[in-house]
């Protein structure tokens, strides 16, 4: 489920960084408003709990293989959406840094996929309405399973969209979706069962922890306006990125654009910001067109002079990069030896 840096392009990574950072700032503001000092250590402990819980393996029903627990939905139920988003983001940051799950650029996408959906979609739109009328263990279980499945599927869908937008894989949208969705349906079911089990356990042992959930009216209703606004901003941003990519994708995304707009390609305005961006992009090539490897088109006509020139170019490339790589590795080794000698002398003297 963790996106990796290597599967993202800078534009897509940056887009999701912007979305996650914005939500993070908004949530932090909401928490500051509430100014509940007790929340600070509780959030810290809850984040650590998610890690600790991952050390306890359990058998997945039916399969016999063992799984562990991700925690986004549980955090939303126990803490409410804003603190839960912050806690989940901190958990994912520590995972990115210490466990190398995902990466620095992919962190934005990972926070979006695994924290935004449980906290701001599945919790307010699925879990809350289902348990609002009456809180019974059965209802909690059903609601937790439904919410976990939805948030995991949305996360999986995001992974698919992010990877395809980055233009990294040759998988088509449908195949990729078929690979991801069933797996995450299973994961979501297990996650929901465990989440419900924990919530019911806590409710029996420490009912005061879940007080805010039971009390109607005590808790302000979730601002739907904010949610709509976020989606609007994201949609506009995505549209911008899509139009950048429209010309680069002859087949992959055209059908979806066609369905949305009725045209095969989004018309990029000739003047204005877009044109400037396009120029900058052409100059810097940070969003490069796929440069096909040399000789790909002419591989069948291996004897043509054009091809042999291309082969010559790629041979120079191979030789050159091997030399540079060797130089880098050798100088790294040399520095290491020098440093070791020096430190040995320092200890000796």
């Amino acid at each position, binding site marked *: 489920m*963790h996106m990796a*840096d*290597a*599967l993202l*392009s800078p534009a897509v990574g940056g887009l999701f960084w912007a979305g996650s*950072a914005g939500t993070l700032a908004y949530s*932090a503001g909401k928490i500051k408003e509430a100014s509940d*000092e007790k929340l*600070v*250590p509780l959030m*810290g*402990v809850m984040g*650590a*709990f998610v*890690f*600790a*819980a*991952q*050390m306890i393996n*359990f*058998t*997945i029903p039916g399969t016999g293989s063992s799984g562990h627990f991700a925690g986004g939905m549980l955090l939303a139920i126990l803490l409410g959406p804003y603190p839960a988003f*912050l*806690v989940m983001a*901190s958990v994912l940051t520590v995972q990115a*840094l210490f*466990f*190398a799950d995902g*990466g*620095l*650029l992919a962190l934005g996408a990972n926070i979006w996929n695994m924290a935004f959906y449980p906290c701001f979609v599945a919790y307010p739109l699925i879990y809350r309405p289902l348990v609002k009328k009456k809180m019974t263990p059965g209802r909690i279980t059903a609601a937790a399973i439904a919410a976990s499945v939805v948030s995991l599927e949305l996360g999986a869908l995001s992974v698919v969209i992010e990877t395809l937008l980055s233009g*990294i*894989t*040759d*998988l088509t949208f449908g195949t990729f979706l078929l690979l991801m969705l069933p797996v995450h349906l299973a994961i979501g079911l297990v996650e929901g069962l*465990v989440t419900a*089990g*924990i919530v019911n356990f*806590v409710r029996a*042992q*420490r009912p005061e922890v879940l007080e805010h959930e039971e009390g109607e009216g005590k808790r302000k209703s979730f601002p739907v306006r904010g949610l709509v606004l976020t989606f609007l901003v994201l949609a506009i941003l995505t549209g911008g990125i899509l139009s950048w990519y429209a010309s680069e994708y002859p087949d992959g995304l055209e059908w979806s654009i066609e369905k949305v707009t009725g045209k095969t390609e989004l018309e990029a305005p000739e003047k204005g910001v877009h044109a400037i961006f396009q120029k900058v992009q052409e100059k810097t*090539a940070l969003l*490069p067109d*796929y*440069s*096909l*490897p040399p*000789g790909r088109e002419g*591989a069948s006509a291996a004897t043509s002079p054009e091809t042999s020139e291309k082969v*010559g170019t790629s041979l*120079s*490339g191979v*030789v050159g*990069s091997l030399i*540079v*790589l060797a130089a*880098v590795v050798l100088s*790294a080794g040399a*520095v*290491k030896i020098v440093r070791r000698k020096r430190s040995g002398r320092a200890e000796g003297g």
Partner: protein
Amino acid sequence: MFDREFFALGTLDCLSYRDSPIHRIDPRAQVTASLIYVTAVVSFPRYEVLRLLPLSFFPLLVLVLGDIPFRFVAKKILLVSPFALFIGIFNPLLDRAPAFSLFGVTVTAGWVSFASIMVKFTLTVSTALLLVATTSFPGICEALERMGFPRAFVTQLLFLYRFLFVLAEEAMRMVRARENRSFGGRGREWRKTVPLFGTLLVRSFDRAERVYHAMLSRGFQGKVTSLRTFRFSGADLLFLLGVAGGTLLLRFVDFPLIVGRWVLGG
């Protein structure tokens, strides 16, 4: 398996408090340099492999100057590779157009893009690992706050990190107790594991309560303060400019091709 992961966390934490030229670099310079580097690496086109290789200069520089054991980093990279491998492996299966032939063996474009993904993966993952191995976690948090991240988030990261080791030990004690009282796979069913999670959670709540009172009596006012001061020195600037400059140079100039042409006299 997760126990081992947890000890690796401890190892990284210990490594980050060593003293070396890299460890002395200001965290802000390190975080910024790493971000620029990672962005540059992933911005290469999907069929690019050769030009990515010289970019290994940055992880190697940090590895060597920071005196970080190579095997430790290599093991961690192998451990997390399955997902990128899983997505990447479809490229050779789907994209069978021949790209070039080497010694009579035709290599397809799919394998080229797969290799590109794996090289990018190695470079970016090692950068993230080396960043924490050479910068203390509180240092990174401080850097994030100064770079504009919300204070509530930074405080949350600091608290999470402090409680992490305590709660992980608690969880390991519980797992050990379960193993001692059960045989084979029994007792590991999810139904029997849920109360274990619940107990851990209730204990965590209690701990948070105790910690909160202890902090209040020590004058806690909602944020973690540090006596450590940060100064962005000339050496930090040099490091940042060097890494950023080198990275961008390798990004926009086809260095390997120039060297190769020069060597082959083409």
